[in-house]
């Protein structure tokens, strides 16, 4: 492929990096309580640290490597450490690396305020290995849920239609959503859940985060093009038309989802909220993710409206069923991912039910979603049990009440009130009070000696 495409992929991968740090960290951090905002943001930064490394070591090999194992995953050792991967392809490794990072980081919203940071840092690589890499392989790497000649679509419909997951409705959002649900249940509810107010501590951060997520999502969706490869001319034509379509669909679906979410809020509670707008943005982006290459712009508007409205209702499910998915990973990512994945079965212009394509696409989309949910659910249970046995999942009760930021990281996000912190350890010379005078006369020591005299007198 040409330089233009390569340059775009460098940009696209960098945009997706931004989605985790800082966009998701801000989006989630603002929604958490002031005593746990740093831990919330650290889960994104920590994920970046660990996930990027294991992706290079065995993630790429296990997702897109050449030696398939039962159409479920690829041998993690065949391309270990990118051994045998051409240098030109590194940016494709990089692009997929950013997807693994954001998917794991998305789960952190479900476990706010109460998960040990060490447990999180062990959970992430294990979960990626058992859940993310296999599902990425199944859907995109030549496995059972993708376009392979002997995959699910071939078994059921002779390979026509093929499953639609353009940029990760199943791999990223359904996967993260199920994992969030399972982990939230296994961790247990936050102390005070349903009893004390747990309102977002800084929605301005959340709105900035949502805006940055939206921007980064252009890299995520538009960068996910896969070429037909029949001829250079055909690929060039596809590049021009498909990137334009995906960009526009991503935009209008998200816009429509803002309206959908706010409309539900206005009807139910009388006010359109800023958190609703920020959440609508993410719900729309999630839903259009699998469908952005298959829908028309008008179809995308419909999908976005439905996603915004349904997710606005779905965030209430946790109160009905009593699971503490703190920042609504289920309500936004699982439900939004399902809306997009299944919605493509209705709205895909080539094969969708609403476009006279019959029900096969719809059936296929539902089955792929269900299999992904099952895999993710089982894998997450296994990983969480391992982490629980090795480290333990949850911080002490006292630490949770006092705030996980200090307990786990030794920090607090905000100094509230003047002089609430006293410096007890002096680092370097004690010339802080001498300002920029630069004299070697050390006023600090003068003060000290005076104090000593006073003490002696």
């Amino acid at each position, binding site marked *: 492929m040409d330089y233009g495409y390569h340059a775009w992929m460098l940009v696209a991968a960098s945009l997706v990096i931004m989605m985790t740090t800082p966009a998701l960290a801000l989006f989630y951090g603002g929604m958490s309580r002031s005593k746990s905002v740093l831990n919330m943001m650290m889960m994104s930064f920590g994920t970046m640290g660990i996930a990027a490394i294991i992706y290079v070591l065995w993630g790429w090999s296990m997702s897109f490597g050449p030696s398939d194992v039962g159409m479920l995953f690829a041998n993690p050792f065949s391309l270990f450490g990118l051994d045998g991967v051409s240098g030109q392809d590194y940016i494709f490794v990089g692009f997929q690396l950013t997807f693994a990072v954001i998917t794991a980081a998305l789960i952190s919203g479900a476990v706010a305020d109460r998960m040990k940071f060490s447990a999180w840092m062990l959970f992430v690589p294990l979960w990626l290995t058992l859940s993310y890499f296999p599902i990425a392989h199944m859907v995109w790497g030549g496995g059972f849920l993708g376009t392979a000649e002997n995959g699910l679509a071939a078994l059921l419909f002779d390979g026509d239609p093929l499953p639609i997951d353009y940029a990760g409705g199943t791999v990223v959002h359904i996967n993260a959503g199920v994992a969030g649900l399972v982990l939230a249940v296994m961790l247990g509810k936050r102390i005070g859940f349903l009893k004390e*107010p747990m*309102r*977002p501590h800084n929605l301005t951060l959340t709105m900035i985060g949502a805006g940055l997520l939206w921007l980064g999502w252009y890299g995520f969706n538009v960068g996910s093009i896969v070429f037909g490869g029949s001829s250079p001319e055909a690929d060039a034509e596809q590049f021009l038309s498909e990137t334009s379509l995906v960009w526009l669909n991503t935009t209008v679906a998200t816009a429509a989802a803002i309206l959908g979410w706010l409309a539900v*809020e206005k009807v*139910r*509670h009388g*006010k359109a*909220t800023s*958190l*609703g707008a920020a*959440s609508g943005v993410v719900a729309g982006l999630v839903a259009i993710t699998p469908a952005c290459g298959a829908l028309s712009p008008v179809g995308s508007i419909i999908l976005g409206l439905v996603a915004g409205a349904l997710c*606005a*209702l779905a*965030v*209430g499910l946790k*109160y009905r069923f009593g699971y503490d998915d703190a920042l*609504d990973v289920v*309500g936004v990512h699982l439900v939004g991912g399902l809306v997009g994945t299944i919605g493509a079965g209705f709205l895909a212009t080539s094969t969708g039910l609403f476009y006279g394509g019959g029900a096969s696409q719809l059936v296929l989309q539902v089955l792929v979603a269900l299999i992904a949910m099952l895999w993710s659910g089982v894998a997450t249970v296994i990983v969480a049990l391992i982490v629980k046995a090795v480290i333990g999942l949850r911080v002490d009760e006292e630490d949770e009440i006092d705030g996980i930021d200090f307990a786990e990281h030794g920090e607090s996000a905000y100094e509230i009130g003047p002089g609430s912190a006293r410096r007890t350890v002096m680092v370097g010379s004690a010339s802080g009070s001498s300002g920029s005078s630069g004299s070697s006369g050390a006023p600090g020591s003068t003060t000290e000696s005076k104090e000593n005299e006073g003490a002696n007198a």
Partner: protein
Amino acid sequence: MKLVTAVIKPHKWEDVREALETFGVTGMTVSEVSGYGRQKGHTEVYRGAEYDIALVPKIRIEIVVDDADVEDITGIVVKTAQTGRIGDGKVWVSPVETVVRVRTGERDGAAL
């Protein structure tokens, strides 16, 4: 000397300050506080979850004044801060034994 303490609605603060300055009050201590009275708090909704927010934001003004000015000053605060709606706040007066100006060491009347 008396300490006049007023807890008022935040949006009335500028009006009260102006009126007090016009009367001749030269200084005061102001803090952002939160609390509730008979109005109780209010309800906020986040992603469909309703929270009763018990504490509402208020402004607290503290002024130390001569006994002679107490009635005028409390009257000005009450008149300017009043909207007639619930949650307008309260003003109370308490005795003050001694005041010292830190810069000069002046005491009581001279320190006001």
